[in-house]
């Protein structure tokens, strides 16, 4: 199993501030996916990044895949209370495609 370390574990910010969540590993991934999970529900896909150095934007969310495909970040600009939730990163291995999940970052955006 490939380990993915997510940081920080908890993040509480004021509405309008920016935040960044990090996902790091010593392993190389063929792709990395970011999900958002509400309590008692399944992970909902936000984005998949595949190419080293790739940057994808989804409205106020910016996702980056490291050049070596070992790390990724999620940046939220001008956070809103609706961004509150658990954000998970999950990497697919190079030779097997099962997902290894990070422990998640709980984001709280205060109005």
């Amino acid at each position, binding site marked *: 199993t490939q380990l993915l370390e997510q940081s920080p574990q908890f993040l509480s910010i004021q509405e309008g501030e920016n935040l960044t969540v990090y996902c790091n590993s010593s392993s190389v991934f063929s*792709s990395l996916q970011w999900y958002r999970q509400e309590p008692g529900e399944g992970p909902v896909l936000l984005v998949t990044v595949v190419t080293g150095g790739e940057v994808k934007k989804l409205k106020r969310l910016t996702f980056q895949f490291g050049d070596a495909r070992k790390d990724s970040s999620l940046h939220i600009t001008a956070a809103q209370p609706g961004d509150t939730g658990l954000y998970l990163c999950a990497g697919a291995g190079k030779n*097997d495609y099962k997902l290894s*999940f990070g422990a998640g970052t709980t984001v709280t955006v205060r109005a």
Partner: protein
Amino acid sequence: EPEVTQTPSHQVTQMGQEVILRCVPISNHLYFYWYRQILGQKVEFLVSFYNNEISEKSEIFDDQFSVERPDGSNFTLKIRSTKLEDSAMYFCASTIRETDTQYFGPGTRLTVL
């Protein structure tokens, strides 16, 4: 938009009983997965399934677990004799190609008493 569905949403069972968790993957997907998430812990891989056989399984997926695709639409996870530590959310996922994004169902919360 097509989605993965799972039933039941919540299953309560007595220790030692058999349970079957059901999933309907997205219709044109070919690769199927089960993951579980114990309360407060990471999502963990259990098993992957393709072409009517298991592709890979984790250490968690012991002889008490089995998977089946009994028809063209359902994908099931059976736990033969449940233990207290099997209590968790169980998620089914599917993808069209092994290298593609996996889409998750809403999960089944299994509570073993």
